[in-house]
């Protein structure tokens, strides 16, 4: 936890049509965020399986960030509700594996939300530095 070189690895789930263009725009505008951020783009955040999230933690990601469409979701007006449920289920699985539920976050990222995305990444990186390296958090979490 005290390791100064610790760079938390963050897995971001984005959406093809709304949040991924927002993340692209952060790059286009050369807004810097941690290079330990990796993005997987999906059609909709309501389709994320909690087992993927758990898999990411078990493989060594320190945090998972869901860049959701929020009200802008073109698939379902209940997108936020579905995504919240997925987060709650994931947090249950995380608790069972002794992973802090604070390691998962969600925010609505729109197609022009370049700065908000970079800010979220900065803030989440700081939070995860506070929480420390996941591999040290609990030995059980290490590669299963």
């Amino acid at each position, binding site marked *: 936890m005290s390791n100064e070189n610790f760079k938390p*690895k963050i897995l971001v789930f984005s959406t093809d049509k709304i949040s991924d263009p927002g993340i692209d725009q952060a790059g286009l505008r*050369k807004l810097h965020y941690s290079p330990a951020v990796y993005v997987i783009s999906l059609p909709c955040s309501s389709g994320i399986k909690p087992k993927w999230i758990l898999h990411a933690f078990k493989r060594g990601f320190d945090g998972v960030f869901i860049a959701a469409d929020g009200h802008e979701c073109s698939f379902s007006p209940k997108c936020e509700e579905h995504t919240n449920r997925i987060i709650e289920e994931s947090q249950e699985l995380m608790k069972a594996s002794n992973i802090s539920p604070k390691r998962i976050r969600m925010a609505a990222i729109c*197609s022009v939300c370049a700065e908000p995305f970079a800010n979220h990444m900065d803030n989440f990186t700081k939070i995860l530095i506070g929480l420390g390296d996941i591999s040290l958090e609990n030995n059980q979490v290490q590669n299963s």
Partner: protein
Amino acid sequence: MKERIGVYICHCGGNISDYVDVEELGRMFHKEDGVVVSKDVMFACADSNQKEMIEDIKNFNLDAIVVASCSPKLHLHTFRNVASRGGLNPNNYVQVNVREQCSWPHSDNPREATVKAAGLIRAGIKRVAHSQALDNIELTVKKSALVVGAGVSGMKAAIDLARTGNEVYLVEKDFFVGGHIVQQETLFTTGENSKEIVSKLFKEIKSYRNITLFTGATIEKVSGSLGNFHIDIKIRPRYINTKADYDLVVKALNECPVYVEDEFNLGLKKRGAIYKNYPDAMPNIPAVNLEVLQSSPEAMLQYANIIDLNQQEELLSFIVGGVLVTTGFDSYIPNSGEYGYKSSPYVLTLPEFNRLTELSSNKLVFQNREIKSVAYIYCVGSRQSKGENRYCSRSCCTSAIFSSLNIKEKYKDITSYHLYRDIRTYGKQEILYEKSSNLGDIYIKFEEKEPPVVEYNGKTNVIKVKDYLSAKMELEIEADMVVLVTGMVSRKESVQISEKFKIPIGSDRFFNEIHPKLKPVETVIKGVYIGGCCQGPKNISESVQSSLSAAAKINALLKSGTISIDPVIAVIDENVCTWCGKCEKVCDYTAIKEIDKDGKRVALVNRAICTGCGICAPVCPVNAIEIAQYTDLEIESMIDGFIQKIEMEVKEETTEVQQESESAKMKEYPQLWKDIIQNIGESKKTIPQLSEELTCKSEIVTYNLMTMNKYGIITADGMDEDEAYYYYKVKNR
């Protein structure tokens, strides 16, 4: 599992390779399991490279390819086509975004950017290794279209769809076409008469034999999907005997003694139970409010020969390939007491006021009072920071100012006060604002937190308002009439329309497009498009633009008779599925149903309806659902790829000398570079000259010249006479 993978890592000029050690990555992935070819290339999208990839696919017998370059939003289809041309299934291709999501945001840290790029590419390789060769879903498309709503947007779209030879069904809920625009006498910017525009459009519709117009009709049921929507509509009877003497019908229309509330005139007057919205309303057949007319046995007897009591509600069915919904909007109705509405006399909404001015000829009179002063209160029902309607309705500022100018011209000596929050007369509409200001209209700015208060003192309305542009000075304005400039809200029938077509509704309760900029008229329901104000507030021009753009989309869809759609849909593992119904319940599109499969109850996905959103996948308690291209194997292997340790020598940064030598290594310049070199020849040219002579956008010429300059292919050589542009000449090669 793919075991002969080709990997291409793009320099993108220097956009990627300035920060990511692309050459090292190219060498590194040579050693990766399953990778047969690994190359760094100057421009992956260049024709020469595309040809080389196709040759590689054939020569090395590749079974999948990965291109690490820009965002898939730019070149996903380019490289899918390359895969196809090489004989691969396009779905055995994965694009890795190492520009927008790596080299650019991490340009401050080239070393870490290279490590990240390695993780991204490895994830791409792992994903493509698990990719499946999926065939697109081929559907036949019926060459017919349904347009719901015969306002100006729907009518224009129907004409455009019919012009290209499609069978068009135009369904209007009201007995007369035209929608909202006919409730306004003249229209900005041309000053045209709205009723004349609608009559003209109606005449044009009638001239097309392939448009069938249904009025008094509603959508009852929708089934089927893209290419073959089965539509059931219900048509209400007009009860006018179509064989009756026309003169008698006109007489009844003008003299009917049984009166009802006039909805078209927003309750400002009564109309006969045998009616048209306005004298020239089309179609030119009156409708009968039978329930009301029957309350008068005398009237029933009097009009027995023109009324046909045998007419019944009719149900009709037809099949269409595509659907355009242009159901428009409702005007916001203020709550009782909101700015004195319904609680004080002489308070009307803007649409009501517009009807009043059209109905009043020489003098503007309301409830026995001649109106000489009008106070307009803006943003009523719009921009509510704490209410339901947080959006701006776009058209109301212009509409209010236009009405204010019209009544000044029509009645003379009218004083107008505009109590506004912000004036949003964008574009050409600004001319109206200027004209109104020049004519002496008084503008007073208020803030939402301190809205005007309307009180009736027994004689007149007094409006108390704090003028924010005069140090919040409290003003009291006496006005004969208060006009509430109300905005647009979603049609009350939107929910039913949404349920029938499964169009998602946004938080503003208007229909949701897929993307406001990139797919502005498409919905996630394949084959269903939206146009006009049903998707959000618009003025008439904007409404027609969006509906015509949707009509063009539908034309393209119907043209070929078949359509090929992406196979990104939910896939059920029937061996694992135990049918619990959770997936069916959560699907907004009714794409999943229960079936019997060899005696076992399992879920079945309708391939044409499924949008591939994936909502059903996480709710399955036995994990029997996967989304094609987003399977557990693909996603989890990507996660493994990101996290796997990278063993590589990463250079701190690339040097200028190296960049210059890049040009020498390039196998072939991009075509535009060749054209630029040829065009410049022995002379020197500026960017505008090259742009004009090569008929190429100046920003593209600029971008390419900068890269060519960096690689030492061209160089600046003085400025032109105006000292506005640099000349460029060819340096070497």
